């Protein structure tokens, strides 16, 4: 009978020395998806500057108006058409008697409303429209795109044909058409009990949202679909299917979560384009209702007095360009950081 014998080397069982231990120490923490992305974003100077600008713009348009001594609809008698930092006669007398008057940084308009607060409120309206529209587009587009991409086959074929159709419909024309047509019915509806909120939001704003929800999601749907088509072939999807996960769960928990980078980037880049459209409509007089200002309607109103009050045109014009530019650059930076494959 053959015997099997082996010897152990006692040295192998000695406690590890300090230098050996050091080689096993994890030098860096494992970097997750978010951390990795933010690290890349932080290195991108242009994106960081635009992020600061975006935060600043959000602060100026959402926080400062709450503490501002004037409101956007308040008409100050005797202070019509003031130049920037100019005071009216009555305001000068109150100042002489010891009263304090907050300066009109950008002057006042022809109805005696402080122009600085109107520009701030205008930016707020533009931002709200851009953000809400983009969120609407995000929801509809990602849902539609993921269903089409996940189920494939004839479902995909039919759904994508519809997308192709909507893609070729000239959207601005339909927006104009709908906001013209929805004007009267919505105004009639707004008087009825339970629908007063329509008046608050504004008839034109609602039609803008309706149109964004109806037409603008197709770009998002296409992008999400192409991502899902790749992702659904991954092993973890097969594993999830084998474990009995429903299609809805797979789409929500696995597929959409894995294209979150694309979703964030596309939504961020959607915001400036929505703001663009809103300002276009406001400029044509199809935007928000007076006295609520928007950057487009402020610029439109300033057009007539351009010779005497050019700053009234430049303030909203500068604001809108700055907002669109900073969101565009931030979106580009986010794309490079979170979704390098999407780079054109």
């Amino acid at each position: 009978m053959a015997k099997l014998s082996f010897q152990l080397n006692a040295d192998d069982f000695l406690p590890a020395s300090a230098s050996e231990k050091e080689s096993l120490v994890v030098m860096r923490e494992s970097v997750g998806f978010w951390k990795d992305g933010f690290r890349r974003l932080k290195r991108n100077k242009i994106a960081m500057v635009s992020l600061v600008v975006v935060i600043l713009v959000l602060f100026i348009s959402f926080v400062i108006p709450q503490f501002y001594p004037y409101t956007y609809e308040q008409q100050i008698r005797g202070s019509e058409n003031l130049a920037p930092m100019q005071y009216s006669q009555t305001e000068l007398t109150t100042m002489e008697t010891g009263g304090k008057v907050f300066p009109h940084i950008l002057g006042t308009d022809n109805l005696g409303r402080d122009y600085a607060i109107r520009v701030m409120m205008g930016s707020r309206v533009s931002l709200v429209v851009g953000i809400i529209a983009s969120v609407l587009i995000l929801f509809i587009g990602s849902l539609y795109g993921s269903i089409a991409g996940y189920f494939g086959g004839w479902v995909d074929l039919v759904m994508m044909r519809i997308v192709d159709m909507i893609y070729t419909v000239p959207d601005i024309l339909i927006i104009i058409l709908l906001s013209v047509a929805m004007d009267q019915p919505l105004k009639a509806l707004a008087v009825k009990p339970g629908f007063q909120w329509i008046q608050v939001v504004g008839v034109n704003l609602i039609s803008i949202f309706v149109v964004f929800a109806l037409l603008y999601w197709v770009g998002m749907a296409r992008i999400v679909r192409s991502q899902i088509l790749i992702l659904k072939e991954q092993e973890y999807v097969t594993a999830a299917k084998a474990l009995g996960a429903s299609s809805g769960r797979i789409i929500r928990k696995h597929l959409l979560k894995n294209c979150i980078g694309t979703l964030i980037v596309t939504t961020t880049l959607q915001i400036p384009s929505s703001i663009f459209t809103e300002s276009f409509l406001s400029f044509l007089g199809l935007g928000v209702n007076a006295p609520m200002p928007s950057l487009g309607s402020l610029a439109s109103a300033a057009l007539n007095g351009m010779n005497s009050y050019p700053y009234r045109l430049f303030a909203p014009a500068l604001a809108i360009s700055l907002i669109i530019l900073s969101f565009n650059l931030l979106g580009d930076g986010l794309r490079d950081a979170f979704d390098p494959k999407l780079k054109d």
Partner: protein
Amino acid sequence: MGRYIIKRIGMAVVTIFAVATITFFVMNMVPGGPFMAEKAVSPQAQAALEAKFGLDKPLSEQYITYMKDLLHGDLGLSVKQRGRTVNQIIASKFPVSARVGGMAILLAVMTGVPLGSIAAYRRGKLADNIIIVFSTSGIAVPNFVTCTILMYIFSLKLGLLPTYGLTSWKHYVMPVAALALYPSSYIARLMRSSMLDVMGQDYMRTARAKGVSQMVSLFKHALRNAILPVVTYLGPLLAYTLTGSFIVEKIFTIPGLGSEFVGSITSRDYPLIMGTTIFLAALMVTMNVLVDIAYKLIDPRIKLK
């Protein structure tokens, strides 16, 4: 190829039909019909007007009549401009818009393509950076801002160019420049990235290796291939120019179709709104089809489905 063209044209026809249908029913959602805004009209006059425009008939019948007329190329009568048909209005105003828009498209392509190519060729150099700044900010500025700032500088401050009308070449400068800024910046960006892409290709190195000069390789090999994405952009570019003309024509008071359309919105001239929408939509869809077909013809690498 033939099948592809037929499929594309078929889809375009369906789209135009859908737009016409949507337009018709959306316009009829307005309670009281197109004469809602008209005040102090006696019931008899109202009835006479409705009979004249066929509004006393049921909606389905009106729809069929409208579609039949549309197939014959008849867009109906304007409500606010008495005695003029929508066709006449479009025929008289569209050439003006087409001239301004066409020049803008030409200018955008003529500036965007060279700028993008130069930026790619001088990558990372001063010229590249300047062009990047120009094209990034050009995309961020809405055209009403461009228009008004141009107007302020060149008309009000310098007094060089006229602010309204369209009678001499000077009148064209600002509207065309304002319309072209956005697409020119966009094309420059597009051109830069596709040129960079092409310049990294193997055949570019091969061309240089076999002794082709830098200039010839750039113009003959790189430019030809890099310009393809710009061709696909021509469809959206036309759509942009058309909608941009609403603003530009309103600001510079150009008597074109754009300002007519904006005017019809404010005066609630429903037949004119409908007619113009369908006309512009048909134009855009047709152009998109032509661009798609042209693209497939130009680039043999693209597989035909």
